[in-house]
């Protein structure tokens, strides 16, 4: 208990230091994690700053998908749907319910709404579809993600097809950094507990797991809900860092991107999910430089080729099922 508290405290301090160094903040406010970064005073070029924020969000998405996909062994393709729920819940709560509160209240309420909203939909979805498995589960969750997207597209209150503009921005790098480390910590601790063992057992051999007294339905629901909770948090961070929401962002392409991060890093490995998220965030942006240099629009071509190459050279993913030392169970 002590150790976890210390680790959390270290995360907070790391986030604050990061904000102080990179964000151009001064230590004069208690709401440092919920303050819009002043990009003109930042040491980092705003472009790099936003890439780093996106990277943190992708790490949360990828590691949370690792819980469903890698640890429990369920193939889902609707992660962007949960992210969308989180993003729109958070933005709506902040803009319609707490328009004049300070950013601390706004952010905590927004994230709470995002996490609970996404978790609630995860619960409903898991209760209705977890009798399916394999490709069928993938199909249904893919459909679910699209249903969510189309539903939001038809709600005029949140902008509909125009998108949601003027979402208050107060997410900074320190905050995102803290949340991604927090997600990793939660999922690591979960993996090394009786629940984690039950999840891996279900992935390895569901029938044998049920004969060990494990209710596979219950465990699957737990992992699904927790994972969608974090996807919702990622959505909230996304909404309040971009300032603009469009349903286009949350199409199934986003879900596939997250799956690609998982597979690229190594299915079932938390470290792998992190690496996958980092690589797949940097790669398309880094290739812009290459494109500027060559002068031909082949960015996406190289992007696709490099993913194919990695999968040919290391089909088990970059980490396989291995973990970095600080994330391993021993």
């Amino acid at each position: 208990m002590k150790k976890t508290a210390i680790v959390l405290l270290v995360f907070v301090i790391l986030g604050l230091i990061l904000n102080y160094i990179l964000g151009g903040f001064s230590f004069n406010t208690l709401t440092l994690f919920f303050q819009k970064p002043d990009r003109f005073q930042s040491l980092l070029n705003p472009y790099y700053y936003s890439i780093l924020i996106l990277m943190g969000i992708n790490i949360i998405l990828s590691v949370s998908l690792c819980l469903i996909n890698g640890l429990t062994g369920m193939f889902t393709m609707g992660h962007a749907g949960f992210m969308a729920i989180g993003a729109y819940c958070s933005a709506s709560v902040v803009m319609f319910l707490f328009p004049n509160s300070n950013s601390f209240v706004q952010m905590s309420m927004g994230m709470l709404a995002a996490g609970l909203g996404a978790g609630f939909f995860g619960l409903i979805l898991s209760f209705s579809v977890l009798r399916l498995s394999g490709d069928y589960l993938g199909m249904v969750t893919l459909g679910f993600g699209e249903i969510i997207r189309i539903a939001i597209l038809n709600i005029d209150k949140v902008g509909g097809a125009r998108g949601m503009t003027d979402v208050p921005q107060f997410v900074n790098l320190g905050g995102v950094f803290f949340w991604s480390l927090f997600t990793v910590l939660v999922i690591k601790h979960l993996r090394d507990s009786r629940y984690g063992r039950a999840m891996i057992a279900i992935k390895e051999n569901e029938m044998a797991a049920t004969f060990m007294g494990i209710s596979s339905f219950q465990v699957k629901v737990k992992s699904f809900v927790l994972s969608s909770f974090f996807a919702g948090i990622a959505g909230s961070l996304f909404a309040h860092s971009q300032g603009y929401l469009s349903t286009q962002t949350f199409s199934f392409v986003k879900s596939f991107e997250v799956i690609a991060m998982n597979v690229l890093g190594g299915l079932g490995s938390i470290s792998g999910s992190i690496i996958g998220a980092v690589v797949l965030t940097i790669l398309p942006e880094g290739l812009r430089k290459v494109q500027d240099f060559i002068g031909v629009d082949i960015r996406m071509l190289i992007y696709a080729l490099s993913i194919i190459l990695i999968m040919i050279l290391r089909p088990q993913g970059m980490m396989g099922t291995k973990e970095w030392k600080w994330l391993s169970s021993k």
Partner: protein
Amino acid sequence: MAFLEIKKMGLSFGGLKACHDVNISLEKGILYGLIGPNGAGKSTIFNVITGIYAPTTGDVLFEGKSLVGHKPFEVACLGIGRTFQNIRLFKQMSVVENVMTSFFSVGKTNLNDTFWRNEKFSNEEAEFHQKSMELLALMGLSEHADDLAGSLPYGKQRKLEIARALGLNPKLLLLDEPAAGLNPTETSELTRLIGEIQKKRNITVLLIEHDMRLVMEICKHIFVLVQGNLLCQGNPAQVQNDPKVIEAYLGVD
């Protein structure tokens, strides 16, 4: 009242009768054998007891309560452990973790304890780990505790399956062909182990086996199943000399 009672149990898949009016009753603390030619319905009986199939007719009573309608994990929690004909280990997990999974249902820690790693959590984990190591020591697998289960040789995988089933602290242990694929040395060692465990823990064991030497050596009471019907039962000597059994196995002139 019998410990486990299968009463007039019948199971049919469409027109195929896998089991027909099977009556089996087990007393506490005795090692039973279930034999019969291939396709006789032995594994089907295991599957009915453990809740994979619901019997078409009849009933299964465990300590006086009906098992029909219970899901497999509920049956396991009631104290019925089983192993499988084709080994079903969690291959990517370590040997000790395989055994630790069986303690899932007795675990008291919730997700909150899991996150904070408080004393309750670490005590429980340590307890599970220690109990698992004891079971591994019992089966002679201590030195492999941290190896991947999938990397164990075949004979040791069989033993690990039994260790894992024992983790449930079962009152009834169902072993589905524990000696299948083992060489004679391994078989005789396993025979000794099963007998020893059964005596030490005073549990009821029902085992399916084709290795007659093993069955005749350790089983006190044997059921013979042929084509879904219970042909006869009795102690090893009775069963061995029963002309009906010889007919079922070898045929008649």
